[in-house]
């Protein structure tokens, strides 16, 4: 993940106090980050992908019939998993391993809550591009998390 986002995330974590204040500060922070990323992405645009994305994307995971070759792990109840420290640590670690642009997009989406419209406007990319990149992010994250048992083992 980029330094900007890492710093922002760390600083954000230090915002104590009332949630309204935190919400307000987060909004300011989000605007500043979006400004920065907007400049970065304008200078060096993301490689365009077709509406169907890259057909080869993650092809090796699937057999000739289009089904998963390795059955995905059963991660159990998502809400319970999302409260487990070991899993949260693993998620953070895997997000940090994402390719830079994909990580930036994913964090804007899942930490700062930007929706497709905002992401398209702020980063000058198309909706299908946003969706393909977020799909890639999620597929990379699930592969990364499966390496540590997707929360079902003590490893982490």
């Amino acid at each position, binding site marked *: 993940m980029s330094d900007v986002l890492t710093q922002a995330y760390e600083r954000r974590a230090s915002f104590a106090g009332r949630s309204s204040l935190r919400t307000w500060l987060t909004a300011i922070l989000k605007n500043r980050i979006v400004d920065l990323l907007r400049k970065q992405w304008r200078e060096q645009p993301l490689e365009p992908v077709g509406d169907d994305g890259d057909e080869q994307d993650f092809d090796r995971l699937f057999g000739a019939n289009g089904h998963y070759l390795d059955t995905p792990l059963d991660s159990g109840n998502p809400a319970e*998993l999302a409260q487990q420290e070991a899993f949260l640590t693993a998620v953070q670690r895997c997000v940090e391993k994402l390719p830079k642009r994909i990580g930036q997009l994913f964090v804007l989406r899942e930490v700062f809550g930007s929706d497709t419209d905002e992401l398209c406007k702020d980063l000058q990319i198309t909706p299908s591009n946003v969706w393909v990149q977020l799909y890639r992010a999620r597929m990379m*994250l699930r592969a990364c998390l499966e390496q540590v048992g997707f929360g079902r083992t003590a490893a982490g």
Partner: protein
Amino acid sequence: MLRITCQQASRLLSQRMEAPLGAGMRLRLRLHLFVCDACTRVARQFAAIRLAMQTLRERD
């Protein structure tokens, strides 16, 4: 053609977290999940990732 592959289903699972799917795609995905344990697990994995990010976001 109502049948879709796991690869297509996985893309739709991610896409529906961003925008509502059209009726046709929604039906195809539903039928696929009905018979496919693998994609049902992927759906739960995607949900766990989103909820974990939410937990991290709401933390002080």
